[in-house]
Structures are given as structure tokens and as C-alpha cells.
């Protein structure tokens, strides 16, 4: 059921160029009637004329004919050899990967050995024994290159075989032959075709090189390498003699490489991951930042709007996000994947991915010095001073968040020295003290280990210790326990709570999570995000106990742990909402949640709800039907359920 994929636009030019360069030599009889090996010594090195567009060579042979027929030889040798190598190599690689055992050994070891020989030398060795000629070349090149194909086919097939969909095919009882040919082969065809182009280019290089040495294609049969060799002595009188075959050779190899590059890009598009190493474009129209009078406020996000151009036109991934983070307070940012909760926190760190741009809004921070700065307006140097010092962050993946090639001590010490003027020895003892504070036994010894020698839970402790290195005022924890086992998760949450309590400087914690249970444990305030907006915000107890937004309610109700009395065998079902969150490019008009909302009314499609504050100001909710909204329902939780 494979269907031909459409040719992507960026493949058109390289494909046409390559096709032209392959077809033209083989169309030689249509282009010129001259014989490439007929000598006419009288006309040696004759300049181009109407009958002989490219002139004649040192034996008076027509150069156009020689270039074209020479191309036939080069291309034939290269593509025949590459095809043989590809077919044989792929066969061995697939067998090795799918059935493992001895075939695996042969595949990998054999290629190790062949890869040891410089290709051209191996070719020379064989030429010594068998004499030069196109046949010898094809044989040598196929032997030289099939291990590379075997290797790529092997490792790619191994990767694909371990994927669930191959396992699913096996579980279905699909015969092995069909799995290998119908499922694995199409999925490794990409890397193989890239290798095919690379190898063809390399084969042309080797063929022409050997012919250049006089050890490849046997004269008088034309070949580009030979033409260059012959014309070398006359390069003074007749520069065309070397320039033409050089140009033909380079153009052909370039066309193949160009095709190969584009093919690789098409098959393996690399998304720009955000790591803060991207050049972040400055925000455009920024609203005037409101003054922060309350000294308790550590950071304030006002009306943040982030856009992406992924969908062609700029689309808001986050809009109207406002959040106030206070000292000695834990604010939880809650939502499902794609809700924009992580982006909001990354914006505070200035770590937005390259594809995402701050379109408007302000991100204010009160530094330790008491100055209030707008993070969107700072130069890179000041931002570096703030990161790790005023704001610190811990991430979701402890396994990849530490650099595997540096010791823990190295990574902690550099974090300390980035902001604190002290000696390395002082920094080291400070780092040990930090590790002890996060509950690492034997910190003096373990500080010199590498991340790979530690468990995920321990690495997350290291990340936390590092975040606390300079006593930040704001700590952002982005799903810090999601990748951890439940018992370890509980320990890390407990650790974060205890660190919060003994922080004298009044730490503000921004806790990003999808897990309402953890949030209930740790948060003072909760902001629930849906499709790029905060839909409900307020005191954690209030919101989690009595949610006013139907989405918050649905989130809580969907959790099996909310229903300890329900059991599927008793015919019970979880009160789930239907549908999925919309993509940023396909949000419905009015309220973004109305498609899935059990209490939506007609006006939900027309009016974009605001965040309506409650009379006491303790909470606000973005729903026309919430009690806070003008004319909203005065409903209780039971009524809605």
C-alpha cells in the first residue's frame, strides 16, 4: 500500500540537474557525429570551430565527443559498481539486523576491515594483480563500497526493528519476509539513497583518479581522468584541454552531491531546538510596562503574546498571559501538552526556541539589587548576569540536562563562578555544601563523578543544587519530576518544599506541571492554561477544590485518582470530555474550549471571554458561564457534573 510521495519543491532543481548530466553523455550520438577515438594528428590541439565545438585534443580527436563518451564510461562504472554495492550491502545489512547472530558479526566485522583500506590503494592493489580496465574497476569499487552499505543498512534496520510498529507487525504474525521488505526496507530507504549518491560521487572520483594515473580505463577508450592526464603537458598552449574535462567531472560530482544534500535535508528535517543559543529577535511593539510597587513581587508577566511563523502567517501560541510571582510563594502553571505552559516559563529565562517570537507584552523582574528590569529589553550580557543568579531553572529531563563529559563538580563550580567572585577551592566547598543540602550522601566523593554514574533522581538533585547555587529569587521548575519514578518523584517534591521553607531571601517558585496531584501538594497559587491562554487563576485550594472553569473541572474529573469509588468492572466510566485541544492555527472563534465544553452556549462562539476576577480578587476565570463573569451562572460543582 505504498504510494509515491510527491517530489518536494526543493528537490526539483537538483533532480533536473542530475538527470541532465546523466542523460547528456548517453545522448552523445544525437549531439555529435564525431568518433571519440578517431585520431587526426594534423589537427592536433585545434581550436574550437563550428564542426568541433570544443576543439581537438593532442591526437586531433574531437574533444566534445571525448567528453561525452568519457562521461558514459565514468557514469557506467560508477553507477554499476554503486548499484551492486548497494544491493549486496543492503541484503547483508538487513539479514544481519533482523536475524542477528552470525550474519550480524560478518556484516559489522567485515566492514571494519574493508574500511581500513584507503579505497584507492586497494584499487591499486587489485589493478597490480589483474591489470587495468573498466571491469576490474567495477569489481573493485563494488567490493570497496558494499561494506558501507551493509553497515548503514544494518544500523538503520536495527533502529527501525526496535520501533514499536515493527514489533506490532511481529505480534500480528506477519511473515518475516514481509516485515523486512514491506516495513523495514521502506523505512531505511532514505539513508540508503543518501549513501547511494555519496558513493556514486566517490566512485566517479576514484575512477577518474585511477584513469588519471593511467591505471584505470584503458586507452584509447575515452575517460575524463585520462583526458586531464593527456592534456597536462599542453596546458600552456591549450588550457581548454584541462579545463573542459575538469569542468565536466566537477559538475557531475557537484550535481550528485547537491542532489544528495537536498535529499538528506528533505528526509531528515532538523527542527530548531530552543537552547538559548539561537539568535532571539527583539520583540516588536512592547506595551509600557506597568510599575511594580509591591516589594513582594519578584516577577510579573503582563499580557504576554508569543507568536510562531510555523503555519505561514504569524500565529499566537500564547496570548494574554499575565502572571504575578511573589516572594515566598509557589505558583503552579498547569496544563496539558501544547497548552503553552512551558513556553511561558522559558520566556522568563529568555530561552524561547528560535521559531517563537515575543510579539508583545512585558516580562518584568525585580533583581536582587531591587531594580526592576524588563527581560525583553536587556542586552545579552545583562541577561547572562541574571540567569542563574536572579532566576534559576530546573528542567524535565535529568538524564540529558547535565553535560555527560564534565564532572558534576566542574559543572557546579562553573555555575557558582559565573556569578560569585571566589576561588575554585571555595566554589568547590560551596558546591559540596549545596549537594549535602539537597540530600546527597557522600557528597565529597560523588561530586567528582560524571552524570552517567548517577541515577535520574540523583541527577535531578544535582540540578536543584545547581539552581540554588547563587540563591536565586525566582526558581522555575519545568516538569521537574515527570521523568522520574513515583517514589523518587515524591522525594524530589519533598526536597523542593523543604528548600522553599529554609530559603531566607524569600524564594518565589514557578512550578510547571501537568500533574494536578503534585500541584495540590506544592502550590499556593494555580494558573491553568488551555490552548495558549490562562483560563483560570487563583489560590490553589480554592481552584482545585472548587474549579469554576469547565476545563479545570474536566481536568480534575478525568483523573482516575479523583474517583476512588469507581471501577471499570462495575460498568463505571470516567467522566471524560470529548475532543482534543485545537492547534494554535485552528482555534475556534470565541472561547477556545467551547468545542469540548459540556456547558457551552451560543454566545461562547461569538464572545472571546476575558479573565473575569471574583469580587474578592482571589481568583479569576476565563468563562462566560462562570459565576465571576457578568451574567454567568451561579453554579456549584455538582450542578455542572
Amino acid at each position, binding site marked *: 500500500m505504498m504510494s509515491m510521495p510527491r517530489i518536494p519543491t526543493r528537490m526539483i532543481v537538483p533532480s533536473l540537474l542530475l538527470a541532465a548530466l546523466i542523460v547528456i553523455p548517453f545522448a552523445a550520438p544525437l549531439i555529435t557525429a564525431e568518433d571519440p577515438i578517431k585520431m587526426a594528428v594534423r589537427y592536433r590541439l585545434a581550436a574550437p570551430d563550428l564542426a568541433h565545438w570544443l576543439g581537438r585534443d593532442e591526437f586531433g580527436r574531437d574533444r566534445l565527443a571525448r567528453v561525452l563518451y568519457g562521461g558514459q564510461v565514468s557514469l557506467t562504472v560508477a553507477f554499476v559498481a554503486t548499484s551492486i554495492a548497494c544491493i549486496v550491502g543492503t541484503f547483508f545489512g538487513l539479514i544481519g539486523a533482523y536475524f542477528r547472530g552470525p550474519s550480524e558479526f560478518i556484516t559489522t566485522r567485515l566492514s571494519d576491515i574493508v574500511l581500513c583500506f584507503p579505497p584507492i590503494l586497494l584499487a591499486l592493489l587489485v589493478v597490480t594483480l589483474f591489470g587495468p580496465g573498466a571491469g576490474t574497476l567495477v569489481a573493485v569499487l563494488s567490493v570497496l563500497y558494499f561494506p558501507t552499505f551493509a553497515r548503514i543498512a544494518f544500523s538503520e534496520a536495527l533502529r527501525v526493528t526496535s520501533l514499536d510498529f515493527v514489533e506490532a507487525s511481529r505480534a500480528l504474525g506477519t511473515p518475516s519476509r514481509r516485515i523486512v521488505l514491506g516495513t523495514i526496507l521502506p523505512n531505511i530507504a532514505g539513508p540508503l539513497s543518501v549513501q547511494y549518491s555519496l558513493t556514486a560521487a566517490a566512485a566517479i572520483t576514484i575512477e577518474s*583518479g585511477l584513469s588519471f594515473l593511467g591505471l584505470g580505463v584503458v586507452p584509447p577508450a575515452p575517460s575524463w581522468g585520462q583526458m586531464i592526464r593527456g592534456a597536462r603537458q599542453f596546458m600552456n598552449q591549450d*588550457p581548454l584541454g584541462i579545463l573542459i574535462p575538469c569542468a565536466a567531472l566537477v559538475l557531475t560530482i557537484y550535481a550528485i552531491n547537491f542532489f544528495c544534500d537536498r535529499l538528506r535535508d528533505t528526509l531528515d528535517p532538523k527542527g530548531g531546538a530552543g537552547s538559548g*543559543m539561537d539568535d532571539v529577535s527583539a520583540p516588536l511593539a512592547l506595551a509600557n510596562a506597568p510599575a511594580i510597587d509591591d516589594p513582594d513581587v519578584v516577577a510579573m508577566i503582563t499580557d504576554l503574546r508569543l507568536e510562531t511563523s510555523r503555519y505561514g502567517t504569524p500565529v499566537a501560541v500564547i496570548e494574554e498571559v499575565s502572571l504575578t510571582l511573589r516572594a515566598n510563594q509557589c505558583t503552579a502553571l498547569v496544563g496539558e501538552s501544547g497548552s503553552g505552559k512551558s513556553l511561558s516559563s522559558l520566556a522568563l529565562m529568555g530561552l524561547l526556541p528560535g521559531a517563537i517570537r515575543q510579539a508583545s507584552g512585558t516580562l518584568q523582574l525585580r533583581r536582587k539589587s531591587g531594580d526592576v528590569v524588563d527581560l525583553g529589553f536587556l542586552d545579552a550580557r545583562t541577561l547572562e548576569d541574571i540567569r542563574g543568579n536572579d532566576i*534559576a531553572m530546573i528542567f524535565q529531563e535529568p538524564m540529558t540536562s*547535565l*553535560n555527560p*563529559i*564534565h564532572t558534576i563538580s566542574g559543572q557546579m563550580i562553573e555555575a557558582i563562578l559565573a556569578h560569585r567572585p571566589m576561588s575554585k577551592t571555595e566554589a568547590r566547598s560551596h558546591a559540596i555544601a549545596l549537594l549535602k543540602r539537597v540530600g546527597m550522601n557522600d557528597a565529597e566523593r560523588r561530586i567528582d563523578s560524571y552524570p552517567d554514574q548517577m541515577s535520574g533522581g540523583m541527577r535531578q538533585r544535582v540540578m536543584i543544587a545547581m539552581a540554588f547555587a*547563587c540563591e536565586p529569587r525566582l526558581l522555575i521548575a519545568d516538569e521537574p519530576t515527570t521523568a522520574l519514578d513515583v517514589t523518587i518523584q515524591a522525594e524530589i517534591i519533598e526536597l523542593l518544599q523543604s528548600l522553599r521553607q529554609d530559603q531566607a531571601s524569600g524564594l518565589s517558585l514557578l512550578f510547571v506541571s501537568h500533574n494536578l496531584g503534585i500541584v495540590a501538594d506544592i502550590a499556593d497559587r494555580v494558573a491553568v492554561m488551555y490552548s495558549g491562554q490562562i483560563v483560570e487563576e487563583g489560590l490553589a485550594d480554592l481552584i482545585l477544590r472548587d474549579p469554576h472553569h469547565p476545563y479545570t473541572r474536566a481536568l480534575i474529573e478525568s483523573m482516575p485518582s479523583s474517583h476512588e469509588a469507581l471501577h471499570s468492572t462495575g460498568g463505571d466510566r470516567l467522566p471524560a470530555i470529548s475532543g482534543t485541544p485545537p492547534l494554535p492555527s485552528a482555534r475556534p472563534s470565541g472561547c477556545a474550549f467551547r468545542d469540548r465544553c459540556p456547558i457551552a452556549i451560543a454566545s461562547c462562539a461569538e464572545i472571546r471571554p476575558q479573565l473575569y476576577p471574583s469580587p474578592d480578587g482571589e481568583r479569576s476565570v476565563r468563562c462566560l458561564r462562570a459565576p465571576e463573569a457578568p451574567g454567568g451562572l451561579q453554579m456549584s460543582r455538582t450542578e455542572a457534573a
Partner: protein
Amino acid sequence: MLAFISRRLATAVVMLLVIGTIIFSLLIIVPGDPAELLLSTGGGSATPEAIANLRSTMGLDKPVLVQYATFLYDTARLDFGTSIVDSGSISSAIALRLPRTLEIIVVGAILALAVAIPTGTAAGLRAGGRFDIAASAVNALLTSVPGFVVGTLFIYFFAQVLGWLPAGGYVAFAANPAQHLQMLILPSVTVGLHLATIVFRMTRASVLEMRGHDWVRTAVAKGLRRKRVVRRHILHNALGPIITVVGLQLGILLGSTVLVEFVYNWPGLSGLLVSAVEQRDYPTVRAVILTVAAIFIAINTVIDILSSLLDPRIRLQ
């Protein structure tokens, strides 16, 4: 660490042994009489005395196992026997020419790394930017020019048209240092150019990949200066993959050096090799190739040990 190094060294020795065996057995599996095969030139075949003579000099009249043992023993002593063309000692011919070949390669490699690592890093850090697009385009073009074409074109432009540098040849450093260096420029740049395209490509890709890793985000979040993040958390990590690829590419580099030496009439191993191939002087060809393979394996062993110093994960395995 010591265990790792000794394991790598043992592997290298085994590889050498396997390669020696393969090269040795090539002569055995050739159909027909190797002596006759080697002496046949064009259409004519050699006299029976000449064949018998060659058989005894090459030891082909002895049992295969004896031949094999002798071959291994002699090779281990670096005694490659004598040329079947001029009966000279192959070992001393190699000893004379190897340093000249290594000189081009080392100078070429230094030039290549000095140019390609900084440009590759800059391109990788700002992938998709103007510099990256320009550098990658130039690189794509240079990748497509085989070494001997570069050499031929260099000679045409720098020696023939501009007359800046000699077209080729060799003078010993001791005899005339200035001229030696002058003659060294084109060959080593030619060799280096090819390596540089590979190193550029690899550096760019590696930096681009490392840049996206979570630990770089951590480093930025710690408030490290951009330069330090690039050096310690991107380049340092990228270096391992880069030198591994360089090591593997050295095989191709050693091969293309043969052509480059030939183009510039640089009397390194290649002259020896090419004339030996032309004259079907199998013992000489075999010795040169063994030497090159040994250098290749030695370099890769050193590189493996180097990368284990760069990346503790390799040691800790």
C-alpha cells in the same frame, strides 16, 4: 584507563594481522600462477626461466603456510623483501619516501583543521544564517573537486598563469629550506583542502547537534557567558565526533595523497607505488599498502584513545 588503552592496542594489532593476511592471501587466491601473472605484460608472456626465477625470489615455490609464516615474520621485522624490478630493498625505499608523504599530510591536516574547525563552528552556531549559507555553498563546491583536479588547476593558475609558485618537484629541506617550503605549499594545500571540506561539514553538523542538547540549555540557564557555553558545552562535546570522523577519513586522505604527489611530482610513497603498479612489482605494492594501512590503524588507535579522554562515557563503558 590503562585497560582501555591496552584493549585498543590489542585490537590494532589484530587488525594489522587480519589486513596482512588478506593482502597475503590475495596472491594465493589469484587464479593461475602469480609469478606468471605478474610477469605478463600486455600480450607477451615471460620466459620460463624468468618465471622460475621470480617464483624462487618471492618464495612462491614453498608451501603456502611456510610462505605465510615467512611473510609475517619478515613484516614484523619491517623487512619487506626486494623489488622484483630492480632488486632494491623495499624497506629502505619506503624509509626514504615515507617522511615526505607524511610531511604533506601533516602540514595539510594542520592547515585543514585550522581553517575548518573555526568556520565550521561559526556556521553551525548560526545555521541558516548568511555566513552559514555562503560557507556551506563554497564547501559543497569544493567537496566536488577531486584532489588531482585541484592539483592540476592549481598548477595551471599558480604556476603557469600567475607564475607565483613552482609547478612541482622536490628539494630536500636541508639542501634549500626556502625552496623546500615553496614546493611544499601547493601539495599540502591541495591535500588539506579536501580534508578541510570534510572537517567543515562534520564540525558544522556536530556543533548544530550539540547546540540542541538539553545541557546547553542548562549551561545558558546557569548564566554562563556565551563564549564559555560554546567552548565547554558545545565544542568540547563536538570534538569527539569530529576527530573520529577525521580519523576515518584519513584513509581517503592517504589515498588522495597518492594522486596529489603524482600531480606535483612529489617523490613520496606514491611515485614508488604508481611505478610499482605499472611494472606489476607486487612485493613493493604490497609493502606500501601495508605501510599505509598500518599508519591508518595507528592514527585511529591514537584517536580512539584521545576521544576516550574527551568523553568519559567511552572509558566508563
